[in-house]
């Protein structure tokens, strides 16, 4: 098919139609919105099925098996098939084998990532010289926030006062997160408007 026709249609008209269909919900619920919603759900499922078949089953199992004689690729293949045994009540216990493998490896990787990659470096970065104001804010913020989450003693007296400072730090963090979230959502709207008025209609620069 002529790309002169297909390019504008698939790259501009269709996305513009679905953008407007989704935004029509802002006025009220309507069939165009419902149509866009259902197309999105169906397309996503189809895209995923095709992608997983190509990138996993074909590229990582069938091709090495057939072209390089990698028979060891049958092991993950069989383990994957065992996951479907949950649909057969008599042998549904077989699903525990691949699940045990998945849980075991995930737990190991997560432990490594959380402790070695996140907790220890983050702790290290709070051990700062209290020479300048920023370092003082970081150290005080970390300590008071941790004390706020210490629930083995009632938050009264000095402990209550320190926990209250911790709440203030948490509130400031929430405020910063909320501000950034607003910015992110607004950016999405700007992106769609740039698409409609700049890319599609060419009304603006």
């Amino acid at each position: 098919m002529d790309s002169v026709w297909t390019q504008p249609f698939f790259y501009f008209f269709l996305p513009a139609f679905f953008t407007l269909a989704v935004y029509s919900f802002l006025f009220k619920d309507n069939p165009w919105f419902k149509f866009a919603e259902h197309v999105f759900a169906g397309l996503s499922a189809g895209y995923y099925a095709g992608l997983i078949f190509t990138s996993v089953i074909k590229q990582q199992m069938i091709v090495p098996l057939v072209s390089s004689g990698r028979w060891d690729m049958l092991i993950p293949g069989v383990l994957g098939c065992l996951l479907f045994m949950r649909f057969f009540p008599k042998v549904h216990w077989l699903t525990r084998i691949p699940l045990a493998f998945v849980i075991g490896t995930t737990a190991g990787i997560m432990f490594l990532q959380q402790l070695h990659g996140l907790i220890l470096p983050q702790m290290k970065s709070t051990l700062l010289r209290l020479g300048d104001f920023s370092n003082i804010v970081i150290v005080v913020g970390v300590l008071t926030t941790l004390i706020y989450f210490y629930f083995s003693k009632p938050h009264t007296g000095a402990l209550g006062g320190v926990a209250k400072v911790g709440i203030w730090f948490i509130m400031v963090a929430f405020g910063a997160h909320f501000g950034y979230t607003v910015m992110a959502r607004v950016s999405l709207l700007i992106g769609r408007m740039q698409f409609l008025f700049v890319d599609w209609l060419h009304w603006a620069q």
Partner: protein
Amino acid sequence: MKMPGDKPTSFVERIQTIDRRILYALIFISVIVPLFLPLKLPVPVTPETRDFFNAVEALPDSSIVMLPFDFWPSTMAETEPMAVVGLRHLFGKHCYVVGLSNVGMGGPTIADRLLDSIGGEFGRIYGIDYVNLGYKPDYRAVMLGMGTRISDIFPTDYRDTPIEDIPLMRRVPNYDSVAFIFIVADNVAVDYWVGLVNARFGKPMGAGVTAVMAPKNLSFVQAGQLIGLMGGMKGCAEYENLLERPARATRGMDSQSMIHLFIVVFIIMGNVGYYAGKRRAARS
């Protein structure tokens, strides 16, 4: 005594019962007016973005850089300009780019389109100057596995070419040949790039992330785990200006500033209305 359904009479009541559709219309106007009449407001550069830019700038020419396109199509308004400005910077420095995606839904397709289009701008050739490895599920296994041998995880690229037939990939057996990782992400994948690849393989990296993720990822910058950070459209606009190639993010910042001003005004009005209403109720 006022009953529910009664028409608001005072200004205070009116601003508290304003139809949400009017607010939507005002936001719509705030976004599109700057698209037609650019205000060209200044975009001051933050230290995190400057550090990120400087780290890429300091890479020797012809370095091999990995660029994960770890974002969904839903956040393309923020993340696509980041990937574009990153590719322009890298191709402009004659760097070789290894693209991949840890997001299945649209990720590898977006990567392919952007690599081809920006690579084309600089006359770069697929397979020699850049490559798209595509997508494989479970990014934890992908990130760790690439540290040993990339061909184990990606036996072929996104276009089904065997990895050993791609000239660029013959020079990149694992992370050892990669000088820098330029992450563009809208999800928790950054935690794993930092927590697994930076921590275990010591690879320097910077990240362009959506604004929602920026506050959390700033802690990685403070800890030195990320060299720099582009936070949302604002961070991308800063990077575009540092590269002296203002593009989509820079143009969007006028609308961003207009809407922020609008939201601040309405938060103030809402609070004034709330406290005035409370005061009036206490008096009556």
